[in-house]
């Protein structure tokens, strides 16, 4: 086994010297990557990876970056699906799905929220019924990002209506390219349409695409949610950037792939409030000489720097093998919201009345306007601020839970009527 960082570097370079050519097709190249274990080196050795630590993985990433090598597919919720399967998937599921996630052949979406249940994910009422050797699914999902591009979805559905809500759920992998699945884009307040509503009408799921066993959907979904929160906390963007503007088939195909896959995410940097633009804007407009603006700018810098430092501490802590730091995900997610709001406020102060304008001719050709009208999303997506505060208070600080109104058989619990 390779352990030394310099040995890793040598091994990656050797592999790339032999295997990489810009004339390969994108899929061909990534298949080689997957076969050699370099597509996701942090994954376990029996799951297409090498069991590398974050530090070891960083070495691989660096080599790829300096040599401008196209890596595994990154964009969108595929990571949620993959990392959940790593924890809960069967050997057969991992073998069937993980390679095509890495090669980019298949993209994914997350089918969790419903019109009647968002924060209360365990209240999902989409129905899955066993019929022979498959499951038949009926119901509606909503706010599903990039479902309009997706080949597969991770799906939470109810398989038992007589058990308490958390116990009657199951977790499925569903083929989105079938007649029983209809995807309709929804226009958002910022004009984009990155999320959708998804109608499931006698949609079919293979028996062996049930993850974690019947009735264990809540545990599996919790894993997905915690992966998702950590992504927010680390400011991980579901977008990907080109490995390099270079000549060759593999680069052309990557560019084409990203054009499609990144489409839902062009506004995602803006929903984080663009704190990176504040200094430049304050200088350009002269707002930097306003003492009140300077104070708010400094508050923003405090928050965003502290969030970064705090994430580094968590990573260093994890590296020492001290286990997961419980509050990290929720505190980071809440922090991202607070930072985004503060940044939007500072941008507003800097732009003054120009903050009314959008599009070309407006500050930064519309980037500031898009920021101001995209920031509200970050406090909702991936679990609202209020839900993060509940988690921090109850699970980290150990404050008492509220009395539940939703115990007993699911069918008797008050629900939204649609």
């Amino acid at each position, binding site marked *: 086994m390779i352990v030394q960082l310099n040995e890793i570097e040598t091994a990656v370079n050797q592999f790339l010297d032999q295997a990489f050519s810009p004339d390969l097709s994108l899929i061909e190249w990534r298949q080689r990557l997957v076969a050699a274990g370099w597509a996701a080196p942090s994954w376990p050795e029996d799951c297409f990876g090498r069991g590398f630590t974050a530090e070891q993985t960083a070495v691989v990433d660096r080599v790829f970056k300096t040599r401008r090598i196209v890596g595994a597919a990154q964009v969108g919720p595929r990571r949620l699906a993959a990392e959940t399967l790593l924890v809960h998937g069967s050997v057969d599921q991992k073998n069937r799905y993980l390679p095509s996630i890495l090669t980019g052949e298949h993209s994914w979406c997350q089918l969790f929220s419903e019109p009647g249940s968002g924060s209360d994910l365990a209240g999902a009422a989409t129905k899955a019924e066993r019929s022979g050797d498959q499951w038949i699914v009926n119901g509606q999902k909503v706010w599903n990002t990039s479902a309009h591009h997706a080949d597969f979805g991770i799906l939470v559905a109810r398989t038992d209506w007589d058990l308490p809500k958390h116990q009657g759920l199951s977790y499925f992998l569903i083929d989105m390219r079938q007649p029983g699945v209809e995807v309709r884009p929804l226009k958002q307040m910022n004009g984009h349409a990155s999320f959708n509503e998804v109608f499931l009408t006698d949609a079919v799921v293979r028996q062996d695409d049930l993850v974690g066993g019947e009735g264990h959907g809540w545990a599996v979904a919790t894993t997905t949610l915690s992966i998702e929160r950590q992504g927010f906390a680390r400011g991980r963007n579901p977008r990907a950037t080109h490995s390099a503007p270079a000549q060759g088939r593999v680069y052309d195909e990557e560019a084409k792939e990203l054009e499609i896959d990144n489409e839902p995410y062009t506004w995602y940097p803006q929903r984080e409030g663009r704190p990176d633009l504040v200094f430049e804007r304050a200088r350009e407009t002269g707002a930097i000489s306003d003492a009140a603006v300077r104070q708010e700018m400094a508050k923003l810098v405090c928050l965003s*720097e502290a969030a970064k430092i*705090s994430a580094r*501490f968590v990573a260093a802590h994890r590296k020492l093998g001290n286990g997961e730091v419980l509050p990290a995900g929720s505190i980071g997610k809440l922090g991202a919201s607070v930072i985004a709001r503060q940044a939007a406020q500072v941008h507003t102060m800097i732009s003054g009345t120009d903050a009314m304008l959008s599009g070309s001719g407006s500050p930064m050709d519309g980037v500031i306007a898009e920021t101001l009208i995209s920031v509200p999303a970050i406090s909702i997506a991936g679990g609202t601020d*209020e839900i993060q505060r509940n988690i*921090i208070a109850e699970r980290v600080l*150990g*404050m*008492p839970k509220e009395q539940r109104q939703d115990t007993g058989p699911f069918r008797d619990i008050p629900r939204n009527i649609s």
Partner: protein
Amino acid sequence: MQETFTEDQLQFREVVRKFLHDKSPMSAVRQLQETESGYDAEVWRSLGQDLGLPGTHLPEAYGGLGYGPIELGIILEEMGRTLYGGPFLSSAVLAGYATSLFAEEASRQVLIPDISSGILRVALVLDSLSCPELVGKTLTVDAADRLTGRAEIVIDALSADELHVIADSPNGLGLYRVSPSAEEVTLYARESIDLTRKLSSVLFDHAPVERLGQVDAGGLQRFWDLACVALSHEMIGGAGALLESTVEYTKIRVQFGRPIGSFQALKHRCADLLMALEFAKAATYQAAFSLAVDDNPGFVASMAKAMASDCFMETARAAIQLRGGLGFTWEDDTHLFFKRAKCDEVLLGLPHVHRERMIQQMEGNDRAA
């Protein structure tokens, strides 16, 4: 630069925590705050002579422990948790740093061993506790080596063996040594909001001085950063202890037939406080790690001071509110933390002053780039 605490540092924290837990319980803090000196001489002796804590950050060559701002920060965080009232901030931190930064070799050899063991308690006299630029504006030493002027607020001066003073002179800023018992020196106690930290005013009228060394502007700023980061540790310690006790209280106090901690308004307030605390701790630890290796410490030192001040005050306000009427009583301990928070907030520069400095530093970097 260090990324997280080492095993040794974690053990060191345990030692300090246990010592303070045994020797400085809240009952002792409450009793001592009513005394003139504000501290227990036996605990101070043990802290200095048995553990050597006042010399933690001072050079080993002069009898200190030779550690740095990180270990000093650990002590102050633990002291902040218990509101320890001895002359640690005044003598070990402020005077200790001033001596090691500004005093000449011969004076260091004499002073640092005794400051480190706690045998010598020094009060550092500054004519401004709000920003380094104002230091030396009112205290001046004339050509005949006589000090004149007034320092409005000095910490622990009444119980100090010596006064060290930063004052202006014909040769620029210098660090001076003055005997508090000289007849040209007048000391009188000031009433302080925070009874655990004793304040006084000091008046000099042509008092004889011994010059310990030169103080340059860069050194003074470095001193200020070190002091701010030490104080930030005290503040996150206080905020941390206060948040814990507040959350515990919400679990046992029952209203409307349920623990008040089950009310979401209170949960959400506590969750926000925890986030602020985690961020303030991140900034403060990072500032100590940066100071230890001199990596752009000014910016993070100001960031730590601003964040820790706001966090401690916000936690103190909530800690009283969440206890209701009890929180507003003298008998409950919460107000002791509230008062410490208020004094720490203004000591060494209010948060807005440090925020302004952060922006100035960013502008400076921008210009340099």
